[in-house]
């Protein structure tokens, strides 16, 4: 009897509990039912505009083996395009044509710098065979690199309309191969120039004096100079630093993705091209003064010897040093001869 009552009571409690639970769920239900409709599937979605504003590029992940293709967008190419198509052309044209115009005006106004005391007929060695080999190795490479490089920037506008697209493509491909492969001997040449002539190219007090007196370029003065005068030292450092900078940036471009990615290559191309056009302009000045600009100058790098009078006028301190050295070795030779002859007598 008690058992039946207790069982009934338990059932009542169970039903009541179930009712209470149902009530709680019913009350809570509307709140949870609203949840799905308030979800915005794009709430946390990446936005193109925001990503571009943050880094000016969008990068993600790709499943293909070419991992560098994970850059989705990089609009920086536009600025590079502006540089390559407009700015660089202006800088190049002004630097190179400006230098040519300057040299023509200078030649017409000043003419060739003559040897004032005339040729003595006696020669003195200025550059030995190794020095001349290194110079001409670098120089020939430079000429090919300069022409093939200018072709990339100006060829399309200047040469393409003259010879037509297929001939221009053949020429440009040859130029590109020459540019790429001659960069190696050119770099070796620049390194050898750096090592070979560093000793005589450290600026010193004589250079200040030389510049103050116009270096013989302005006026007919002949300020004293050692093996290299301040102007030549400047050329040396232009070759070493300009050659070095164009070599480093050039190799970054030649081996894409080994050193940098696209943005780095754009920057490397900017440095490479601006250094190159300024380098070319400077070398035009160097070529001028070494050929038609000055009497007796070319033979220094041609045959390797210069006239003693030329040395006296343009490199007086160097001539004195050479004479002193020759005198010293001459004296020791004489002494040696004297001592050798002594016992025999």
């Amino acid at each position: 009897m008690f058992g039946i009552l207790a069982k009934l009571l338990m059932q009542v409690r169970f039903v009541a509990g179930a009712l209470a639970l149902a009530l709680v769920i019913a009350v809570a239900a509307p709140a949870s039912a609203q949840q799905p409709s308030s979800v915005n599937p794009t709430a946390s979605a990446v936005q193109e505009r925001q990503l571009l504003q943050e880094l000016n590029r969008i990068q993600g992940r790709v499943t293909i083996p070419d991992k560098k293709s994970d850059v989705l967008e990089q609009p920086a190419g536009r600025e590079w395009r502006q540089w390559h198509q407009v700015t660089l052309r202006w800088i190049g044209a002004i630097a190179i044509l400006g230098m040519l115009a300057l040299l023509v005006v200078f030649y017409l106004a000043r003419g060739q710098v003559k040897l004032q005391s005339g040729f003595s007929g006696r020669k003195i060695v200025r550059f030995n065979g190794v020095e001349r080999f290194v110079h001409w190795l670098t120089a020939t490479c430079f000429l090919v690199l300069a022409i093939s490089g200018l072709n990339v920037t100006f060829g399309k506008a200047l040469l393409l309309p003259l010879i037509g697209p297929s001939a221009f493509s053949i020429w440009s491909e040859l130029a590109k191969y020459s540019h790429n492969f001659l960069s190696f001997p050119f770099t070796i040449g620049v390194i050898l120039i750096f090592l070979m002539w560093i000793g005589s190219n450290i600026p010193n007090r004589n250079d200040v004096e030389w510049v103050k007196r116009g270096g013989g370029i302005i006026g007919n003065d002949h300020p004293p100079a050692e093996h290299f005068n301040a102007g030549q030292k400047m050329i040396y450092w232009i070759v070493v630093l300009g050659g070095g900078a164009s070599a480093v940036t050039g190799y970054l471009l030649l081996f894409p993705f080994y050193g940098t990615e696209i943005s780095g290559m754009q920057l490397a191309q900017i440095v490479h091209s601006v250094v190159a056009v300024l380098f070319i302009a400077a070398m035009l000045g160097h070529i001028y003064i070494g050929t038609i600009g000055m009497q007796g100058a070319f033979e220094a790098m041609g045959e390797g010897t210069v006239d003693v009078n030329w040395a006296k006028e343009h490199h007086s301190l160097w001539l004195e040093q050479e004479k002193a050295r020759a005198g010293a070795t001459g004296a020791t030779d004489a002494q040696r001869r004297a001592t050798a002859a002594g016992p025999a007598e």
Partner: protein
Amino acid sequence: MARMKFLCDADRCIECNACVTACKNEHEVPWGINRRRVVTINDGKPGERSVSMACMHCTDAPCAAVCPVDCFYTTADAVVLHSKDLCIGCGYCFYACPFGAPQYPKVGNFGSRGKMDKCTFCAGGPEADGSKAEYEKYGANRLAEGKLPLCAEMCSTKSLLAGDGDVIAQIYKERVSRRGYGSGAWGWQTAYREAIAT
């Protein structure tokens, strides 16, 4: 004539890479070259999106502007194509392209990378339409057959759209207004200097 464009609806792309495979197969693209790829942004995080990307056939294309030998040309359908006979493989288009589209057949330095290869919008090259020479250099010319690019045609979720710019922009607008959201036409601002107002 139509102004052909690509549009990838990133809210639909499921990163199946079928467009990549279809492209490679249709044009017999050699190993190492991917004319099309799928990039996933914020992979594994909430709000990740995948975008299928290839050459966008830009208005006033940067590749064409910087090319030192002028080997690019734009068709009447505004598809940007190039001549592999004129290309010297210098890599300049690669520096200028905002979408990483230009590809080179050989790994190594630019001196020996070979002729550039890129998406042709399934429109071949300068050779005669449908010729063997055209197929060998640039792949199939579906446009000449009256067909649209295969990548978009076989996209299982119809995420990738290809066709006249106005038409695909309209399709995208309708989708966005119906479903209530859209992460935008990726690359349009960069390629065409215009976004789709939704």
